């Protein structure tokens, strides 16, 4: 074994800097809050309400994203048509929008004074300052994560599998549900996980569009911001929960990917 060259040392140094920069702040959350403190701060009404609200709104949002996004992503992956690249770009745009822009955009579109505000109101739907508004905000920012991932997963499915099912007499719809979805499942699951992570962390668009009210619109990130000024320790504890949940989501994606690779599902 020879001594590492300067290039290897440089690579190692950069990795060390990146690792420290990205992990120290997260570790500090846990360093500052003892497990006991963490648990006790989760027992109070505001935290429980925020956790429960975040759970409900993200679950609803994920259900909508799955139901609408899965067929939409399949269409984009399976068919080619004029302007497809433009459609994909438009769908992906919210990925790179700052949350504040997303908030303003939602207000301008479906807010009470938005271009579609009258129609929303006429339909008897109330979005601003309601739980439904939270769902709209987090769906808007997180759906592109799923769509992108689902398109890639569908595009990677071997067309001959679908063709085989069709020669056996199955309709395209049947082939989609029985063949394509099972094969694309790991990719779809990681799409859900990415969207879930973004949805749980949504702050700016929610505050601007849905406001902040305990039990109605105050999700965990909003509760953290609300507490930052009065009770830094409990803000830390609530942050620790989000870190734990997000970490668990990330790990589950890695396991799904690995499981898929082991079973030979992964596209080449």
């Amino acid at each position: 074994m020879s001594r590492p060259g300067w290039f290897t040392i440089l690579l190692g140094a950069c990795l060390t800097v990146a690792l420290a920069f990205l992990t120290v702040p997260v570790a500090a959350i846990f360093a500052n809050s003892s497990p006991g403190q963490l648990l006790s701060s989760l027992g109070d009404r505001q935290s429980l309400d925020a956790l429960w609200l975040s759970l409900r709104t993200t679950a609803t949002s994920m259900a909508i994203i799955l139901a609408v996004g899965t067929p939409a992503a399949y269409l984009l992956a399976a068919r080619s048509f004029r302007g497809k690249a433009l459609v994909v770009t438009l769908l992906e745009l919210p990925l790179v929008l700052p949350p504040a822009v997303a908030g303003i955009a939602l207000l301008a579109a479906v807010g009470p004074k938005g271009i579609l505000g009258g129609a929303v109101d006429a339909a008897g739907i109330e979005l601003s300052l309601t739980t439904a508004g939270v769902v709209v905000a987090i769906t808007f920012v997180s759906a592109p994560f799923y769509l992108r991932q689902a398109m890639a997963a569908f595009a990677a499915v071997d067309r001959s599998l679908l063709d085989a099912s069709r020669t056996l007499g199955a309709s395209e719809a049947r082939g989609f549900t029985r063949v394509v979805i099972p094969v694309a499942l790991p990719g779809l699951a990681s799409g859900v996980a990415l969207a879930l992570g973004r949805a749980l962390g949504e702050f700016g668009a929610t505050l601007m569009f849905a406001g902040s009210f305990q039990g109605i619109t105050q999700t965990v990130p909003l509760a953290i911001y609300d507490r930052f000024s009065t009770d830094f320790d409990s803000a830390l504890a609530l942050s620790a929960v989000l870190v734990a949940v997000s970490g668990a989501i990330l790990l589950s994606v890695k396991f799904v990917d690995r499981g898929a690779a082991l079973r030979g599902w992964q596209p080449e």
Partner: protein
Amino acid sequence: MLLLAGAAFAAGCGDDGGSGSRQTALVVSAAASMKEALTACAPRFDKAEDAAVRESFAGSDELAAQIRQGAEVDVYAAANTKLPDRLHQEGLIEAPVRFATNDLVLAVPEDSKIDSLAALASPGAKIAIGSPSVPVGSYTRETLAKLPAGEAKAILANVRSNEPDVKGIVGKLTQGAADAGFVYLTDVKAANGKLEAIGLPDDLEPEVTYAAGVVGKSKHADLAERYVDELRTGGCARALKAAGFAPAP
């Protein structure tokens, strides 16, 4: 280290963005309600002192929390006296100076169905107020506590959003998301006719006094001191007056 150096470099570039001379940067953490007034008077102060004032506007409570966490701030200007007094007791800022007063009002968008304090208690009224920790929210609760218990309860039941700062309330009102909200008179003036103020009866009106202090850790304490004086008597005092604030007694 490299990253910190990079961050410092990025910050440095911002400092020299102005005239190019080496001006002293003065970081002012000020209550969101003073945004228009303090932004307007900054250039004059910058010129007179060869300084570069950088304001950070947010809820006074958030700004106090940042100072407690060690943020590099030179002047803290809050929408109440309670928060600066507490920071002073904690040894974080010098003795605070009262420099302005404001009025809490009921604000409604032009076309609102709410036209009085009593109408706030009617079912279906959508109200936005400040969260309990931000001064505007605590003044609001102070006012509501003076009403008959039943009325106060009915009004609080109509609250749909507890905003982190007063500009958040203004946003909810101008966007039509809320029918009414409690803000400062100066916020209604700054909204350029989009909002109407409904004054509160004298016996309900809270005493809204603004106070500022030099942050103990400030590296430019003299300049920070002059900025606080400016709030009381100089160009910024005039800008505050123009925005609808009254001088502190």
